[in-house]
């Protein structure tokens, strides 16, 4: 029996302290839905180009010219069920599928290092689907996906691979921890073109310093939408931007009210 009820204030329908959060969440989801609906109805949503996504064909082309493979890795993350790392792994799967299709079309070998055990079947299935989409399912082999458990063994395996195979391009997209700087700098040593992407704020500086292109924070999640350019999918990105404007206004109003020592907004948000 869950004991939270003993001391959470649950006298009302909604748990106390979470009403404002629920309101903001519903408003955000409603905005997403409205813009998705408008997108489906034909209203075009323009998003800026993501240089990192546009660099993927370039990276594949470089690998094709040099006759070298392309390495893709998603970082140690935490697992698919992790609230902050799981979505990064899933977003990375979208990008991996796209990169795989480009590789198959260009005849480039892709080697994927997946250190997260529960993402392994998803990675294999994504790559199998990529081969199927290109009509070359017989060329698919599960050996494209390499699993190494543990952060240090994973780092060592990738470092060894980079030194032996010397891939022309590295894609480091997903939930990274300290292995980001090791793998990316080793990639620089061999002169590979590198595309990074993570939502982990503590690793962004390292990937920015070592990669040629970068997907920062929300760009990682928007990349999947940017691939297909589905109007309804792009609508959610528009909804995100609108919500950010709303937060900006709230922050400004809160600042002014705080300056005037009026706690109204804080009290509302604490409900």
């Amino acid at each position, binding site marked *: 029996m869950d004991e939270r009820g003993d001391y959470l204030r649950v006298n009302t329908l909604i*748990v106390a302290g979470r009403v404002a959060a629920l309101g903001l969440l519903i408003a955000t989801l409603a905005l997403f839905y409205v813009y998705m609906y408008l997108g489906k109805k034909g209203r075009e949503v323009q998003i800026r180009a993501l240089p990192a996504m546009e660099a993927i064909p370039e990276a594949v082309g470089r690998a094709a010219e040099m006759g070298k493979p392309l390495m893709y890795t998603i970082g140690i993350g935490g697992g698919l069920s992790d609230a902050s790392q799981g979505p990064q792994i899933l977003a990375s799967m979208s*990008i991996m599928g796209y990169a795989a299709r480009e590789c198959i079309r260009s005849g480039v070998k892709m080697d994927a290092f997946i250190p997260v*055990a529960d993402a392994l079947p998803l990675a294999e299935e*994504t790559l199998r*689907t990529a081969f199927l989409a290109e009509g070359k399912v017989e060329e698919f082999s599960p050996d494209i996906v390499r699993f190494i458990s543990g952060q*240090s063994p994973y780092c060592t395996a990738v470092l060894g691979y980079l030194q032996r195979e010397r891939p022309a391009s590295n894609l480091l997209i997903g939930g990274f921890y300290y292995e980001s700087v090791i793998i990316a700098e080793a990639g620089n040593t061999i002169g590979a073109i590198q595309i990074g992407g993570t939502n982990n*704020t503590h690793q962004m500086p390292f990937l920015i310093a070592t990669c040629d292109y970068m997907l920062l924070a929300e760009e990682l999640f928007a990349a999947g*939408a940017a691939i297909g350019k589905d109007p309804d999918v792009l609508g959610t990105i528009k*909804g*995100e931007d609108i919500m950010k404007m709303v937060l900006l206004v709230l922050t400004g109003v809160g600042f002014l009210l705080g300056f005037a020592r009026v706690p109204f907004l804080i009290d509302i948000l604490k409900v």
Partner: protein
Amino acid sequence: MSTLLKREVVYLITGVVAVTMFIDFFFFPKGWDVASTLQTWAMIIGNIALGLGAVRLLLFYGKQVQKRTVGVWHYSVWLIVYFFICLITGLAGYITLGHQDKNPIYYWNFTNVYTPLGQALYAMTGFYIFSAAYRAFRARNIDAALLLIAGCFTLLTNAPIGEVIWVQIPVIGRWFLDIGQVPGMRTFMIAGAFGLLAYGFRALLGKEKGFYAEVGGQ
């Protein structure tokens, strides 16, 4: 059938779990234990996946040994041998003595081989950051020059020697951290959170390809 399993069943499970967790967090009906049970299941599934990973690892490196892949196969032999040493000694320790660490061979391997290697690799991070900073911190334009200046002050703020060089260095460094970096981090956190929310929404509506092991592109 495979499309049904890959898409519709995944879609259904995702929707049910999302709604359950939503209700649990915001409404918390008394006696509603489903969310807790689902969280426990998530833990168990994640751990079972390790077994799958182990099998894939053995299959891959077994093939390397079989093919005698140049430059790799001898490492693969060692990996497979070491894998089984750890597995057998760990299991022996767990079955006979109640904990894998109680097997002396397993414990010796863990403390004297695996642990120092892990520590050495983490120490390498410092060297890699050093070479990355040397390569990346070039004042190619105004933005890069400002980044360079901020970076130098931050480096010297973190080291006590900064205060010895000039007593104002930590003051300026703290200013860069508190006024420059922290608001920037907040921005990334908020933006990332919205991106995550939008991704989850798209996944729930079946619009996100990676979630269903589908591929985009033309």
